[in-house]
């Protein structure tokens, strides 16, 4: 009773995703998920098609490596992986470092709150008539809005020059978002986004792609008109514009106990097969659909579109596991009576398969102080003919080394887009 009251209070306070119950003891016996040894461990099943990340060892002293942190961040949301990014006025040393930027393999482009970019006078992108280019980018639950600006982007020893980035307007500047930019919550503020910005490192080089007739607007001081944004002006995957190590990223987070952990810190690595430290090793490559950046996931006799998505905070798939009850949005998470060890099988367009074992635990059994949790999930939206999905969110990444290769670039012997683990 008191447990669930605590849940209600936490949700009333506007925190996302908290749990009743204290204590950190894992409530199940070994369930075949991540092992608990060191940063180079990864899950593997005992089947012939299991994959292991091999001995991928990274160090922050390498120029292509930066820290990847899961913790309370800006907003005390769980399973938000972040890193720091430095942005500079192009061709100058006038720079601002920005922390708590969400690392997102499910979107493309660097987007930063105007308030954290602050007084850094980045040049704004304009169209040939001098109108400011602004972007309304959809997410499933809302949208971001703000101008496109040019910046040099520095992460570790990597630098991308003249990158179109998206400044997210958390200053309520004019012009405001067009009325068609309204598919939910305005995410251009730290409280709603849960971070100071998004580093989208998904499998595309630009966010919109060829023939883009969506998302972008040419704006006067007060009015915005939809515009077709040329490919090379679009908000870009900054990794694709690095001088080197520019064909993809690797996310590695140490394994954590089933009860979760307060924080977890690992690595964000740039490039695949471009340096001594970032080869595939014996990771299994699953090539992805070039339009959707999805693979095939077989689970419970169903064939689904799967994707590895660090910007999602759980494992989301349709199932008859009982949903949770008794707190806001409870039905968006699964609450099995005891932890459920499950396995999906992922398959690339190349026909190669890799097992994906995971566990689903009643989220209310986990401490709300644990910001890193690897065994939570919930139902996917059930719209079967529109493509049932399996969203391998951040829980999948703990205890694994996960590669995301960018489209149309060779990455250690295979052309992107692909996932590997």
């Amino acid at each position, binding site marked *: 009773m008191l447990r669930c009251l605590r849940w209600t209070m936490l949700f009333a306070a506007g925190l996302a995703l908290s749990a009743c119950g204290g204590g950190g003891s894992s409530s199940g016996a070994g369930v075949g998920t991540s092992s608990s040894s060191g940063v180079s461990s990864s899950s593997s099943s005992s089947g012939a098609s299991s994959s292991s990340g091999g001995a991928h060892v990274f160090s922050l002293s390498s120029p292509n490596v930066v820290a990847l942190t899961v913790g309370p961040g800006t907003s005390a949301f769980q399973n938000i992986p972040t890193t720091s990014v430095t942005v500079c006025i192009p061709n100058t040393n006038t720079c601002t470092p920005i922390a708590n930027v969400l690392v997102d393999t499910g979107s493309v482009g660097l987007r930063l709150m105007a308030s954290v970019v602050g007084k850094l006078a980045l040049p704004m992108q304009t169209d040939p008539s001098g109108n400011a280019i602004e972007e309304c980018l959809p997410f499933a639950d809302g949208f971001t809005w703000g101008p496109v600006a040019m910046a040099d982007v520095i992460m570790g020893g990597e630098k991308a020059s003249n990158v179109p980035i998206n400044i997210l307007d958390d200053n309520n500047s004019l012009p405001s978002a067009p009325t068609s930019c309204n598919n939910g919550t305005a995410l251009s503020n730290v409280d709603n986004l849960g971070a100071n910005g998004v580093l989208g490192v998904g499998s595309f080089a630009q966010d919109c792609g060829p023939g883009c*007739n969506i998302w972008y607007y040419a704006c006067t001081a007060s009015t915005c008109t939809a515009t077709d944004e040329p490919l090379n002006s679009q908000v870009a995957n900054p990794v694709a514009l690095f001088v080197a190590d520019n064909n993809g990223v690797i996310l590695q987070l140490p394994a954590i106990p089933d009860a979760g952990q307060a924080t977890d810190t690992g690595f964000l690595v740039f490039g695949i097969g471009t340096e001594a430290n970032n080869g595939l090793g014996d990771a299994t490559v699953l090539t992805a659909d070039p339009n959707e950046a999805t693979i095939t996931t077989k689970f419970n006799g169903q064939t689904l579109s799967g994707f590895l998505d660090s910007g999602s905070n759980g494992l989301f798939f349709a199932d008859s596991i009982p949903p949770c009850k008794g707190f806001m949005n409870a039905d968006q998470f699964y609450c099995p009576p005891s932890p459920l060890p499950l396995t999906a099988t992922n398959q690339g367009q190349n026909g190669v398969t890799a097992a994906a074992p995971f566990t689903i635990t009643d989220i209310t059994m986990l401490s709300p102080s644990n910001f890193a949790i690897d065994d939570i999930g919930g139902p996917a939206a059930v719209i079967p003919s529109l493509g049932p999905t399996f969203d391998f969110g951040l829980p999948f990444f703990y205890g694994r080394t996960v590669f995301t290769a960018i489209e149309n670039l060779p990455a250690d012997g295979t052309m992107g887009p692909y996932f590997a683990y």
Partner: protein
Amino acid sequence: MSYRSMHAARTLPVLIAVAFAWLAGPALASLGGDVTSVSDDGVQFHGQVLRTAMLQYDRHDITAASGTVVHEYLSRAGKVFAVTWQGPTPPDLRQLFGSYFEPFRSAAAAQSRPGAHRRLSIVQSDFVVQATGRLRTFQGRAYIPSLIPSGVSIAELQ
């Protein structure tokens, strides 16, 4: 009122529909509305409306200029009881949800973002929205349970 719809207004009937939309605001949008609201969506989304008669309802398909496909389900009682969408971007939900847009917006704002930004699920007593998507593909479904013809299952609303 989108600027693109101004360019689409080339014929008088379309001008009237567009002007009326300007004056009447969201009352002309689709969910819970009638068949004329479906035509208005066709105009606003810059797509032809293709009608398919099913046993208990008509399904109207609109492919918007963006490439997003919208299905609008119209009951024999003349009401749009469900809409679905799939494509590179969500459709203009203010247009599509009509008088349900404000309840949608405030319900979305009240969520504590349980899926991070990959999923949205709103379940109210007579209004359900499920939305998902990432990168260049977004999809969703919204329906009014009390308007669904009897015998029609949610699963067939795709």
